[in-house]
């Protein structure tokens, strides 16, 4: 008995169909792998292996942009309170860590130097 190409496709016992089914499965696996790869690859390109997580809106923790200062004698700090200290060109600033907890960043100028104190 002679088969045409078409007949062989609809005959499940035909070896050609078997080959086509195999190709189909291999193709599926390839598509799956490609998707997996492209997700991973794009993630790497965008630093998304370490994703950026949004916890709060911008400025929910208000950085200080116009810091106010008092002298050492006026400061109402415990003598053991932890501070960050900075000194440039003879001018020194101290920032209480407890105050910085609520602000994280102070945009400041010390001894003419424009600095960001971060905590």
């Amino acid at each position, binding site marked *: 008995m002679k088969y045409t190409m078409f007949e062989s496709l609809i005959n499940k016992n035909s070896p050609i169909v078997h080959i086509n089914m195999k190709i189909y499965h291999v193709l599926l696996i390839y598509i799956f792998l490609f998707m997996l790869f492209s997700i991973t690859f794009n993630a790497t390109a965008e630093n998304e292996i370490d994703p950026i997580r949004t916890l*709060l809106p911008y400025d929910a*923790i208000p950085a200080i942009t116009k810091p106010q200062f008092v002298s050492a004698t006026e400061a109402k700090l415990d003598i053991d309170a932890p501070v960050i200290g900075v000194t440039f060109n003879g001018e*020194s600033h101290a920032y209480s860590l407890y105050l910085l907890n609520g602000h*994280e960043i102070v945009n400041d100028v010390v001894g003419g130097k424009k600095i960001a104190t971060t905590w």
Partner: protein
Amino acid sequence: MYSRELDGKTYTFGVSGKLWRDALLMYDHQTRSLWAHITGEAIQGKLKGKKLTPLISMPQIAWKTWMANYPQTKVLSIKKLESRENDNYADYHKSQRAGVSGTQYTDKRLLNKSLVIGVQFEDKNGKKHYRAYPLIQFAETAIIQDTVNGVPLLIFHSKDSFATAVYKRTVDGKVENFEIKDDYLSQDSQGRQWNLITGKAKQQDDVSLERLTALNIYWFAWARFYPETSIYKP
């Protein structure tokens, strides 16, 4: 502590509310680029890849010790909060939980929440090195003298005032050995005395040790940003 000046422009920074590698991301008001506060590097936005210049500072010190060394200091004041402050992060600091993302930290050389002094420096070939000095190493001594890839370092940490400072261990181009005399006063082999809070020679106010930037930081955060870091062992 960073300079707000970069390529001739001045920036101001705010808190983005975003975290990356469990650390705060700042943003600049001018371009809204996002900056990692541990490295000072922009990771997203117009200024991506740019780095802020880190500045020398005292990352933490007891107020009385700072005041004793810098009596003319000004102190940040916030009227409505001025009376008494609480440490809102006390619970976070007490637990071994490392950050908020649930990330498993794999660098088990130290406990996640071990405090270390994070130091970065270049050797004479210009190669960058990262080294962590666990604070526990300062239980018996206030200074550690170390040499890493030919770079002689003096690490100072006072467990009383919590002051931290890192210096090159050279005076007039010669490697020196120091011993601690009193609290934060040290003496080199020539008998010269140095204040390790200010870095200045006791007798000569205009002579200072070369100082490096230093971070007081949890191990997990330091190791996350600088996985190639070495750890000091006595």
